[in-house]
């Protein structure tokens, strides 16, 4: 079967799908929630462009060499992050090319159809182009003041990002090909790499941070440290494949001579040729890596089969005992919680159905425990890191700020044990005989409790390291859970308004991520604002003796009020959620 024929059939499918998706989007935009999602995206784009042009456009332009190093080095850091995430992922198939993007229908009719594997890999690459264009345009807004030619910048950034996507997929294929032992070895190596990177970053930040820094200083210094890390010789040596495109993006004229990796000197046109030429080269590398990876997986499977054949009988009986013991423990724990909730809650609040959902979420937690521990362990260490600095009045503030930032920014992606996990089971969830309120409480219970445990643990350790007043400790212990509830309630409400599958990619996801980030930035700004407002109000209106206590009480009440309102919002979103209409066709 000819390549042209295969390409033609894939193009035909892509056109049909695009037409259908466009029709679905048009219809959805006419509904209330769809209009809200559209409005949020439009608002984000307007804010982003206006902010980019007015605020970022006025900053001092970066010199072309720094821009080039920052672009290429930053992308290497991203590729490293991606690789480490995959190495530590328990879902091995996640690393296989197309595993996330392809729908079950794609897997059956295309995977089972007379198409070359390389054609499917090529299709995977082509489908990332629209999202890459969107990302390039977003980056263009930020960087447009640094170069003379915006068109050249846009093309350079686009080529860099596209090369990065290919490199990322090559890395994924290589990771997918690893055996269990190789994976364990890579985990150890990745830990060493991460430690080295953090030591480098820490030392750079320590050198440049002013005495008695405030959070803004620390954030600016950390960003500068990351920039320094991206431009370091170690990272730059890994960035060679991305350099031609980075040169295209940063060069000032068409014929300027630029050093490439310190080894070659090529002019601007040659950079263009190299940047464009890198794409087919990496494409071929990806096809080879994918084919090699599939063969390796098969080989490892055979080795594993030999091993399993020898130990199967013992393992199975032992595993059944362990599993049933684990299941009993989880069930008993949930039963106890249920009894406790019945005692605490008013009689007209029914939590029976909710506990079934909690049980299911707990099983999920037990299954992904190592991932969750890892995801929460790092924020705990980061949040506690200010405590090792010299004693200062702001030390405590940094720690609390770290906990709040981690709760808002890091906890939601780390703990996706909520509605986001069940996109394809929404119909089933809707059919369960429990109230919307119970469903939402049940869905949020586990991630929220895990986040609260992280917050309480970090605050308590901080209190032990830097002794503080008991009233401050208890205030924080009571206030912080509100942030956890608010974060997960809003995250899930937005998910129900604009649902997407975990690991989805494309323009929609790029914009969605930015909208979510914008919302989080608003929340981050709202918390200190609310503290300042209530404190100011109490100090002006109340006598000095009660002002402080009243302010703390006011903050507690206001934060919890916001959290409960957000829960009601989530419940409303769930009540209105229609699996047939709201979930996009695959």
């Amino acid at each position: 079967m000819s390549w042209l024929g295969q390409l033609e059939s894939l193009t035909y499918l892509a056109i049909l799908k695009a037409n259908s998706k466009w029709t679905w989007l048009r219809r959805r935009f006419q509904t209330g929630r769809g209009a809200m999602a559209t409005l949020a995206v439009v608002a984000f784009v307007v804010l982003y462009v206006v902010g980019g042009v007015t605020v970022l456009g006025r900053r001092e332009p970066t010199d072309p060499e720094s821009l080039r190093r920052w672009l290429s080095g930053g992308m290497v850091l991203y590729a490293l992050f991606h690789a480490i995430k995959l190495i530590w992922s328990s879902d091995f198939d996640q690393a296989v090319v197309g595993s996330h993007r392809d729908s079950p229908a794609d897997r059956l009719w295309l995977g089972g159809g007379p198409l070359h594997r390389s054609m499917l890999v090529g299709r995977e690459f082509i489908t990332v182009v629209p999202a890459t264009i969107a990302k390039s345009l977003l980056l263009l807004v930020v960087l447009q003041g640094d170069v003379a030619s915006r068109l050249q910048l846009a093309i350079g950034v686009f080529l860099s990002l596209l090369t990065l996507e290919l490199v990322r997929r090559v890395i994924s294929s290589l990771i997918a090909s690893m055996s269990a032992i190789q994976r364990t070895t890579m985990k150890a190596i990745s830990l060493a790499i991460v430690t080295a990177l953090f030591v480098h970053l820490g030392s750079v930040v320590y050198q440049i941070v002013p005495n008695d820094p405030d959070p803004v200083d620390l954030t600016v210094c950390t960003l500068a440290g990351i920039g320094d890390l991206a431009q370091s010789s170690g990272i730059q040596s890994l960035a060679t494949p991305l350099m031609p495109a980075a040169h295209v993006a940063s060069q000032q004229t068409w014929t300027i001579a630029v050093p490439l990796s310190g080894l070659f000197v090529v002019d601007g046109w040659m950079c263009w040729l190299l940047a464009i030429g890198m794409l087919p080269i990496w494409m071929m590398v990806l096809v080879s890596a994918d084919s090699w990876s599939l063969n390796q997986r098969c080989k490892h499977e055979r080795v594993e089969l030999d091993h399993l054949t020898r130990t199967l009988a013992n393992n199975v009986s032992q595993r059944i005992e362990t599993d049933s013991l684990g299941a009993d423990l989880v069930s008993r724990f949930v039963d106890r919680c249920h009894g406790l909730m019945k005692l605490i809650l008013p009689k007209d609040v029914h939590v029976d159905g909710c506990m079934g959902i909690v049980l299911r979420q707990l099983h999920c937690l037990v299954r992904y425990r190592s991932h969750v521990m890892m995801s929460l362990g790092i924020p705990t260490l980061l949040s506690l890191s200010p405590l090792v600095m010299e004693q200062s009045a702001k030390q405590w503030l940094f720690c609390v700020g770290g906990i709040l930032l981690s709760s808002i920014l890091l906890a939601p992606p780390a703990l996706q044990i909520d509605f986001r996990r069940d996109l394809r089971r929404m119909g089933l969830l809707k059919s369960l005989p429990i109230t919307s309120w119970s469903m939402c409480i049940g869905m949020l219970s586990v991630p929220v409790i895990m986040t609260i445990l992280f917050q309480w643990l970090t605050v308590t350790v901080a209190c032990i390291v830097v002794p503080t007043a008991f009233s401050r400790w208890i205030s924080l212990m009571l206030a912080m859970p509100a942030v956890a509830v608010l974060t997960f309630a809003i995250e899930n409400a937005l998910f129900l308004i604009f649902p997407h599958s975990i690991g989805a990619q494309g323009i929609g996801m790029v914009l969605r991520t930015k909208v979510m980030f914008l919302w989080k930035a608003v929340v981050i700004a709202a918390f200190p604002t609310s503290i300042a407002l209530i404190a100011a109000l109490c100090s002006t209106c109340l006598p000095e003796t009660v002002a402080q206590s009243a302010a703390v009480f006011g903050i507690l009440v206001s934060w919890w009020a916001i959290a409960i309102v957000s829960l009601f919002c989530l419940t409303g979103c769930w009540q209105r959620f229609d699996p047939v209409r709201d979930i996009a066709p695959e």
Partner: protein
Amino acid sequence: MIEITDLRKLYVDTLAVQDVSFQLPSGVVCGLVGPNGAGKTTTMRCVAGVLSPTSGQISIHGMDPEVDPIGVKLAVAYVPDDPPLFDDLTVGQHLDFIARLYRLADHRKHAAELLNRFELIPKYDSVASSLSRGMRQKLAVACAYLTRPKVLLLDEPLTGLDPPGIRQLLASITEYAQKGNTVLISSHLLAMIGDVCDRLLLMQDGEVRHQGTLASLRNTYPNAETLEDVFFAATTATAEDETTDHHDLIDDEAWADTVIMDEPSEVDRRMVAK
């Protein structure tokens, strides 16, 4: 013609299929039966080239999926249980897409016949997501027939179909096999497939327990009145009985050269040698 030798498939830490061997000549309808988790679907997916076997050989009309994956995929059509369809494509667009994918010239007439046969004409412009379970099943089967495969693999094709639909599908299977094609059909509706199958392959715990013609299987369990009784008798048989069952089936002429037993005992070997 399907030839499977010592097929094994491992999923993480579960051996789904172990040492499965059988041959199916052209023009035969073979029923693949067994309890849930027996390894039927995995076997079918390996034959279809959707899954790579961990070990063992597969040959479809002399082609090895590892060596000539495209050739095998052109020769085989696989319809899984509850087949996934492109939610955003209509019935007609599905058939057009399959025709393009398999480079079928002048497919419209054949497509119209299939749509008519499976009563899908009124749904021609409906998107797949709006179809009922049975309609989706019929569309997937129509797509499979459209490619005119030499080997047709149907995994639980009767689930969700109405009685006329079942009758129509079974009739089409018989006709298709009579044209010299091989059909492997997996189902729990034993009474239904019993009428169309020339042979039966019974799997349990990832292994082939019995294989042979329906008559030979009935002879093995003379007290069983229906095919369902035979199924229960075969799947609940003790290990001791199984040894005997193997021998009874090996005597069947049609399968004499194809049966490979799992871990044959010395007695088994002697019986095969005879």
